[in-house]
C-alpha cells in the first residue's frame, strides 16, 4: 500500500507563513467580492474562494510581484472559470459583439435621469444580468477600484480591451436601468 502521507513536518516555514498571512489573507474580502459577483451565489462563491486560497497557498512561492491582491484576484477568476467548466472565459465574444447594436446611444433620455434614484437592489439585479466579461470589469473597477492596468493583469487582456469592455458594460448598465428600472429578470450567462 502507498506510504502514509499524513506525516507533517514539525518545522513549518514560519517566514513563508507570515508572508502569506501578511500579504494574501488581507485580500480575502476582495477575493470573495469578485467570486460572489462572478458566481452570483453564496455557496458557490465560498467554494471558489476556498479553492483559490488553496491554489494561492500552493503557488505562493511563484508570487514575486508587488501586489498580492492583483495576483490573488487573477487566481480567483481562473478558479471560477475552471470550476464552472461550462463556458471558457473567451467564448462570450460573439454575444458581446451581438450586443454592440444596443450601444448606440445619444445622450440622456428622460429615463436615464432616474439613475439617481436607483436603489441597491435594482442596481444589483442589473449588474447580475450583465454577461460575465462585462460584469467582472465593472466589479474590478467600481467595487475593487482597480486601475485599468490592474484589471488587464487580472483578466489577462490588453488595456484597450479593458477600456472598451468597461465602456460597453456601463452603456449596458445604463440602458438596463433606464429602460427596465423595476423589472426583475434573471437569466444565466
Amino acid at each position, binding site marked *: 500500500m*502507498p506510504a502514509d502521507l*499524513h506525516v*507533517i513536518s514539525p*518545522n513549518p516555514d514560519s517566514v513563508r507563513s507570515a508572508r502569506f498571512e501578511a500579504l494574501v489573507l488581507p485580500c480575502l474580502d476582495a477575493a470573495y467580492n469578485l467570486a460572489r459577483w462572478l458566481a452570483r451565489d453564496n455557496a458557490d462563491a465560498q467554494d471558489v474562494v476556498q479553492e483559490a486560497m488553496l491554489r494561492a497557498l500552493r503557488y505562493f512561492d511563484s508570487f514575486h510581484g508587488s501586489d498580492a491582491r492583483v495576483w490573488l484576484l487573477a487566481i480567483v477568476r481562473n478558479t471560477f472559470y475552471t470550476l464552472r467548466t461550462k463556458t471558457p472565459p473567451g467564448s462570450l465574444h460573439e454575444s458581446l459583439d451581438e450586443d454592440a447594436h444596443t450601444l448606440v446611444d445619444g445622450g440622456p433620455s428622460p429615463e436615464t435621469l432616474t439613475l439617481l434614484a436607483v436603489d441597491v437592489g435594482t442596481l444589483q439585479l442589473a449588474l447580475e444580468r450583465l454577461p460575465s466579461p462585462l460584469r467582472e470589469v465593472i466589479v474590478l473597477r467600481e*467595487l475593487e477600484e482597480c486601475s485599468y492596468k490592474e484589471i488587464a493583469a487580472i483578466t489577462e487582456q490588453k488595456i484597450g480591451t479593458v477600456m472598451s469592455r468597461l465602456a460597453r458594460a456601463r452603456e449596458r448598465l445604463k440602458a438596463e436601468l433606464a429602460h427596465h428600472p423595476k423589472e426583475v429578470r434573471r437569466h444565466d450567462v
Partner: protein
Amino acid sequence: MTCDDARLLVHAYLDNELDAAQSATMIKHLRDCTACAASYDVYGRLRKALAQPGLYRRAPDALRERWSPAQPAASAAPASPRRRRAPLAYAMAAGFAGALLLTSPAWIAGLRQDGGGGNPVVAEAISSHIRSLQAQHLMDVVSTDQHTVKPWFEGKLDFSPRVKDLTGEGFPLIGGRLDAIAGRSVAALIYKRHLHVINLYQWPADASATASSEEQRHGYTVIRWATEGMHYVAVSDVSAGDLKQFVLAFQNDAGTPTARSPP
C-alpha cells in the same frame, strides 16, 4: 475629438486613465458638446451609484475563520498536539495535500473517517488534478496517439504504463504527464470527456493488491483500483457515472499489452 471618440474616452476620463494631453482635449470637447457633457454627467452618477457599500460582498465569517491565522483548525479532527497549531503553519509545512487536509475540514473530514492508508492518495490525487488544470501544467507530451504517448514515458519512469486511446468510447486520449503521488513518480494520462478533463494516474502495485473504491469530494469523483500489478486512480469533475464508464472502458480495452517493467 469626435463624439465617437469621446463616447469611449469619456470612461477613461472618468477613471482618470487619460494622459494630460488627452484629458485637455476631453475637457475641451465636454465644454463644447452638450450631448457628451450630459453623457459624462450620467456616467458620473452611475459610478457614484455603484460605489454604494451595499454592493460590496464581504467574506462570510465561516470563510474568514477558516483562513484566520490565529485560530486552530475549525474541524472535528482529533486534538493531537500537532493539530493544535495554526492551520496555516501546517498547510505551509505540508504542502498542498496538507493544505487540503487541514483547511477544508468540511469535505476532507470524510477522507479521514474512512480509515485506511489510501485516503491521503485521494486527497493528493484531487490536488494534483486541480493543479493540472492550471494552464501550463496539464501535459508534458501532447498527443492523441497512444503509440507516441507510451514511448514518451520510457526512461522517465521505472515502469511502463498502460496507455490506451478510448476515443471510440467517448474518452479521447489527449496526452501524458509525469506526476507524483504517494511519494513516488507516477504516470498521468489525460483524457477528455466533452469539455472536462480526466486524469488517470498509475504506478506499480504489489501483485496481490486489488483494492478498489469510489469517492466523491468537493465536486470531484475519484475511483481507485488495482489490477495486474498496477495502481490506478482516476480523477475528474465529470459525473460519477461518466467516470465509472471511463474506468470500465479502460479496464475492458485490450489496448497495449501490460508491461510491468521495461525489458
